[in-house]
């Protein structure tokens, strides 16, 4: 008897978004539990904000205060290693993520077997160890920890300003906008031939219900990111 076809779940994301770190870890845990084909789609959050005419939530002071508390409580409960950067405004609004997005794109185009772990290592830099993710040396360090051979990492890093890589990042960003995205993460689950877009890290139980899968909570026992 043939096994039922895996449902495709596209995970559009930018490592600049702290709630995306939560959603990413939980979705990676559920890869083992659900009959899904999880496709990581690195995009450019700044492009999403522009395309949707949106603003980062942290620009409302009372919201920014709340987000800090909310992230601390959720990451504790989900067992995701997390520390807010010492200067979140600088990290999120000034330094940004264009190089990281392009590097993730280059890896996705050439050796996507490393994409998950590279994503994890970049999140650990920005949202656990308060380390830079914009400089080439930072991206190399993340690549090494992700197990990408040094020569390959250097070669991919040299391509991040290539038109092909820029175009691919732009296309992925546009694909998310076409699904109605206005932030990160944007998860598109293909259910009964229809794309269902879910925004954020707090629709996973609902998504499970629609996928016909069982929700077990955040599954901290399956944590891959170690402190």
């Amino acid at each position: 008897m043939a096994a039922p076809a895996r449902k495709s779940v596209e995970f559009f994301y930018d490592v600049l978004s702290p709630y995306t770190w939560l959603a990413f870890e939980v979705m990676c845990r559920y890869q083992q539990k659900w009959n899904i084909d999880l496709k990581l789609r690195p995009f450019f959050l700044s492009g999403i904000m522009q395309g949707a005419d949106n603003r980062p939530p942290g620009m409302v002071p009372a919201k920014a205060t709340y987000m800090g508390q909310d992230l601390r409580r959720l990451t504790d409960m989900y067992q995701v290693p997390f520390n807010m950067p010492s200067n979140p405004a600088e990290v999120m609004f000034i330094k940004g993520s264009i190089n990281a997005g392009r590097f993730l794109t280059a890896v996705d185009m050439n050796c996507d077997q490393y994409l998950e772990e590279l994503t994890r290592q970049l999140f650990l830099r920005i949202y656990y160890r308060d380390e830079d993710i914009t400089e080439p040396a930072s991206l190399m360090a993340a690549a090494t920890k992700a197990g990408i051979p040094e020569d390959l990492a250097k070669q991919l890093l040299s391509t991040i300003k290539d038109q092909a890589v820029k175009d691919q990042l732009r296309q992925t960003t546009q694909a998310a906008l076409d699904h109605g995205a206005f932030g990160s993460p944007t998860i598109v689950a293909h259910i009964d031939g229809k794309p269902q877009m879910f925004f954020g890290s707090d629709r996973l139980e609902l998504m499970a219900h629609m996928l016909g899968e069982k929700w077990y909570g955040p599954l901290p026992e399956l944590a891959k990111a170690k402190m």
Partner: protein
Amino acid sequence: MGFIPVFMMYAAGWRRSILKFSRSSKMAALRSRKVVELFYDVISPYSWVAFEVLCRYRSRWNIDLQLRPFFIGGVFKETGNKPPGLLAAKYAYAQHDLRRLADFYKIPVKMPPMERLMRRENVNSNRLLTAVNLDCPQHLENLSRELWMRVMSRDQDISDPASLETAAAAAGIPSGTTPQLLGRIRDDDVKAALKDTTNQALAYGAFGAPTIVAHVEGTPVMIWGSDRFPLLAHMLGERWEGPLREMAKY
């Protein structure tokens, strides 16, 4: 046979001890109920979701649910936040999101046009809820639900006194009481109470609706939105058992 009366006396003694124990632990449970305040506005669709979920969990969790009708307009003004539905991409998403949540939670919520939600006179609803909370709080839950059914399911007005009269009747408020309650909308003490409740939410750090404040071991924990119930359960030392559709009022 002698054994049976002895056994029955023995069992009766056990029963008395068990009753005494359960009464005292009921008392202990009542004393230790954790207060959970729900600050809500009927023009907030996600407030309806939070309201129904907390009403369902009132009998499952050891909580004392306190309904706090407030004025989201005042919160937006004070914090510089804006209604999310004013952004086209967010409004479109809210329509899909609420349709799916309606199925998931079995609540007939449907995003109305923003024009319906942005009417200045909607504050009459907030004031009516405040008056009911002051004068006859036993009707607060039903009236809240009926106002949501109007504005957030049938796209009906909730700003005009005639609309509010219809809602009050549908909520089971005696027709003799209604004219007086509607008159209270203009009273200074009602306006002040609405402002006061709104300021309490702001003091907890609110910037939107719903705002849930759980009092855990003497500390208020503020949670925003209708999608943190598993976290709320965790903080209350309770278990999240999902949407509990079987308890839906619809």
